[in-house]
């Protein structure tokens, strides 16, 4: 009897999951259809519903970016292209459209430091895997050196190399996550946004930020965020005018 109950519960779970996925696919198709018919606002609404459900994918965010682009909202278009690229670094369509949107909006980009530029050939996740692999290889080599009768030079060299790679990969993960394009990267989505010297609309302006400009958020105080600006200065920006790239 118990086994029957378990089987029934499993089947119910499977059916509900399947129907949920089917619903998401249906919503996605509907949003695509709205986009194709030129109903960009409806398409944006449909894509945003999918994003809100947590079923993120690079293609979904790319499509949302396209819909925003069509409405002339370059700030949100750039934000969603950036999000698509955050999920899939090598998304060619998102890369191409991001460049077009930036050109249209005259958006400012953060300037990367030289270590970030050199570390860019892999992303944070790839460095994490490299660090894990190198760590375990190094540890196995050390264990072998400890328990082995003979200490071969090759094992010693491999252990040193592995731990060196582990250290470099760990630093790379940290550098990329905390760099100008890391987790604190945000996009200016508001219009006529000015970075200011203080948390007041009347404070002196540091830099005018066109929509789609990149900033790196350092801290938040009330309705303002303190951010590193594309010209490497720092300023206060209204919270409602920026959105983090990484959800």
């Amino acid at each position, binding site marked *: 009897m118990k086994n029957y109950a378990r089987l029934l519960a499993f089947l119910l779970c499977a059916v509900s999951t399947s129907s949920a996925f089917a619903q998401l696919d249906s919503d996605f198709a509907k949003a695509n259809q709205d986009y194709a018919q030129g109903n960009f606002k409806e398409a944006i609404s449909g894509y945003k519903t999918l994003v809100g459900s947590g079923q993120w994918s690079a293609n979904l965010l790319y499509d949302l970016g396209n819909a925003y682009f069509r409405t002339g909202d370059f700030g949100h278009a750039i934000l969603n292209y950036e999000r698509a690229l955050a999920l899939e670094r090598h998304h060619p369509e998102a890369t191409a459209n991001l460049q077009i949107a930036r050109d249209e909006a005259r958006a*400012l980009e953060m300037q990367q430091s030289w270590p970030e530029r050199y570390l860019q050939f892999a992303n944070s996740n790839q460095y994490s895997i490299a660090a894990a692999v190198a760590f*375990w290889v190094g540890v196995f080599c050390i264990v072998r050196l400890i328990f082995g009768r003979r200490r071969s030079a090759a094992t010693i060299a491999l252990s040193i190399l592995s731990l060196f790679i582990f250290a470099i990969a760990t630093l790379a993960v940290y550098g990329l996550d905390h760099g100008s394009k890391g987790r604190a990267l945000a996009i200016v989505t508001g219009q006529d946004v000015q970075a200011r010297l203080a948390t007041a609309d009347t404070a002196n*302006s540091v830099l005018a930020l066109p929509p789609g400009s990149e900033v790196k958020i350092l801290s938040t105080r009330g309705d303002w965020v303190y951010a590193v600006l594309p010209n490497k200065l720092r300023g206060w920006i209204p919270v409602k005018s920026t959105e983090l790239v990484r959800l």
Partner: protein
Amino acid sequence: MAVLLGALIAFAEDNRAFAEPPSVTAVLSNSEAVVGQMVELQIKVTGAGNAQPPEHISIDGLEIHATGTSRQFEMRNFTTTSSVTYNYAILPLKAGQFAIPSQTILVGGKSLRTPELTLNVADSPGRSSASRPAQNARPGNASKLVFAELIVPKKTAFVGEIVPVQIRLGFDPRTHPRLIDLPEITGQGFTAHKLQQSGENRETISGRTYDVVTFKTAIAAARAGNFEIGPVKAKAQVLTPRRPSSPRSRSPFDLFNLDDPFSDPFFSDPFGEVGERREIEINSEPVAFDVKPLPQNAPANFSGAIGNFTMTTDAKPKSVQVGDPITVTTTISGRGNFDRVNAPGIEDEHGWHKYPPSSKFKQDDDVGISGTRTFETVLSPNEKKQSMPVMAFSYFDPVKEQYVTLRSDPIAINVQGGALADAGAAVVPPGSPPPAAVAAPTPVQKPQDILYQLTERSTVAQSFGPLYARRLFWTVQLVPLLALIGFAGWKIRQARINNREARRIAALQHEAVELMRKLHRSDASPREYYAEASRVVRVKAALARNVDPNTVDLETAADTFGLNGDSRERLRRLFEQSDELQYSGTHNGSEKISPESRRDVLELIEHLK
């Protein structure tokens, strides 16, 4: 302590070095004066420790003396700024308009120049009654207890021109005045800056002593025409003598045009009666002011700035890619209406994208008519460029009565990527026929369109979280961890096994040595001797083959040591002899083994290697 102090100084010097390049400004305490009225000239050098100011400034009609040096340090956000101010006292000897020429200051091997300043000197009041018409409230009548004075040294100005104004309020010290309302300049057709109290001193005027409070401000006419400035109105509480019991010929409240109420016996006898505080209004006389309109031929980028300004420009970074931002910092210094000083414009915006500029103002005086406004404009090259565009700033110089346009020097930059800007078009002189290539219409570049929608959605939800923050990542780490534990356990077990084997081998070696020692002795019986000899052979073979000695037989031992026919036969006899003596139960004759037999056995065994 000395080391710490030294480190702090070095840190400050280091920060200062990186904070900003040296700069110099010059400012007059008042650009309008009368003959004999001292004016102060301040030359301020910022960002340099040592500077060589001019020792003598000689201008005909002005007597200029250096009066001292002051030094200021300011630390803000760990950035130290130091400035040195060189003070000069200027005594006008005659009336007229004097230009204080630009002074060269040597700062660390570099020559910096101060802006040119203008000082308008009018005749002193004693010489001409028209020179200071605004001072007619001055207490020529010795009976005045308070007075207000509006000093507008310049009676003619242009629309929008900033004219510094001084207000002086004088009080008889015996009135113990308390100012209730700050003085206010009434009138229409001009705007006034915020009033700043600039000094308080005691003066003797016409034989009477006054406490004089001086305020500074500046006005700017909003329209052309003749109108009056003032009067200045202020309210104060003063101590007046109590009304006398006997009728008097005047009212004690009429403070300005009647006799001195302090002639009352109260003031001669402070213990006699107590005075009373009264609120009074102090008024000055208005001043006539003539405002001229600006000339019509204003440059296109004239934003209403009137005064005397200088401009410097810098750009960073100087090596960029096409599309990268370059921050152009433009500094406009001088004296004038800085609220109308806008960012310089770009003369040729072709190939550049300009973003809205930001600005900040640092004033050098109390009123804000002298200072430095710094603009930061972000420019982005759309194509390959070799120099920054020329920035132009126009203002109206009221002294020269003409418009002046300041242009930035060309700043060389290196822009990588994109096509080189058509420099040829820029150098074609006006009026010359345009080259054929230029005459051809430039095709309008169609704006790029974005790529298509993607209709396939990944069935697996992706995550923005870093891999190392996911549970799966750490769960996967359990696999190598368990493998490591297994590997380490296996290695430990192997080590223990190896240790046991080593002990066994050591025991066998020890046994072989002991047996060989016994075989060399002559006291053993044949039974013992041959048994020990065969045991030695088995142990040696077991050591060579890493097997149990009990499993070694004749053939195994012979094969182990590779014995030939004769040796194999001798070994066989040794084994047979041993077995026979061991199992037959007889001793076969003598109790002792012969030396020949022992030698033969020893020789055989010692050759087993």
